[in-house]
């Protein structure tokens, strides 16, 4: 039902997408820098005999929000979903799970 051609959509949206990609890249770089600074500080203070460095980075890698971002990026690359279904797939990825037996759990 879309009225616009793929070329026109790309022309229209290129700068918007470009800006958003750079914004995401900047946030990820900021996270890396913050993790690096945290590890440097803990290394200088001798906390954990150097384990603080690896600890800060490991914590970031294991942080569920960071993992969700990484998975969402994989969906953008269309590795795991059908064409045209990326938005719904990312919405579901970032949602709490629904359990069919919720009424029994609540007793209602």
């Amino acid at each position, binding site marked *: 039902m879309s009225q616009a051609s793929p070329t026109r959509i790309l022309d229209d949206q290129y700068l918007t997408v470009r800006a958003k990609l750079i914004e995401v890249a900047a946030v990820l770089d900021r996270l890396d820098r913050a993790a690096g600074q945290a590890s440097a500080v803990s290394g200088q203070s001798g906390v954990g005999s150097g384990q603080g460095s690896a600890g800060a980075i490991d914590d970031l890698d294991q942080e569920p929000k960071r993992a969700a971002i990484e998975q969402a990026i994989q969906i953008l690359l269309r590795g795991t979903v059908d064409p045209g279904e990326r938005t719904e797939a990312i919405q579901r990825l970032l949602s*709490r799970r629904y359990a069919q037996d919720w009424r029994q759990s609540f007793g209602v």
Partner: protein
Amino acid sequence: MDYIDPHIHMVSRITDDYATLARMGCVAVSEPAFLAGFDRGSADGFRDYFRQLTEVEPKRAAQYGIQHYCWLCINAKEAENVSLSRDVIKMIPEFLDAPGVLGIGEIGLNKNTKNEVIVFLEHLDLAAKYDQPILIHTPHLEDKYQGTRMILDMLDSDSRLQRSRVLVDHVEEHTIGEVLDRGYWAGMTLYPVTKCTPQRAADMIEKYGPERLMANSAGDWGPSKPTAIPDLIFELRRRGHDEALIRRVVYENPISFFRNSRNFVFHDRAEIASRRQV
């Protein structure tokens, strides 16, 4: 283009917003009961709020040629207080025959808790007993998918409710299909950060078509844009969609849904003009 905003909280907007809406083509709004920005302490606090919705806002809107309708309930965000919720639900029938009251709403879930579920089910019972249409709030962000599915489970299991008389609002890409497939109306809310943009709403219209689909601004206390529907109209025109499709989503569909209420009396621009000439 004339349009209707079926979900906007005008009590939290200044009078200038009514003037702006009128200039943008808004001819009618419907205002679901919402939270006040703080938890109200008594049923009497809600009684005053319902008087504001049924008596004050229609007059404020009429100054700008906008027809004002409303929906009554205690909002999901205040439903953790079950005792207060029951007092409010008991009082709502006092207002159900007031002009412009379209039904029960916006009821729903917020954090998908047991108390919210209890209060939601009691609102459904109220709507069924008084034969009222229903307007539903679905949760935001990570709670939306789970909460929407829970709401649909509860609606489906109440055989007294007609699906064509229920609007499920704030749908997004991961919830709209299920809502429409099950025969309910769906509302897309154009709102920064927590809901969807005019561009994404246009995508959903392209994917699902205009049947039982509406758009609203939900303009309220938070960062929101009461003129979001004109933004959607602009986006659809920019993409080359015809005027009939746009008019169906932003004008005809709200009227069709509101006709489920015995209190819905609407005058289009032509009727109002002809009355002036008499």
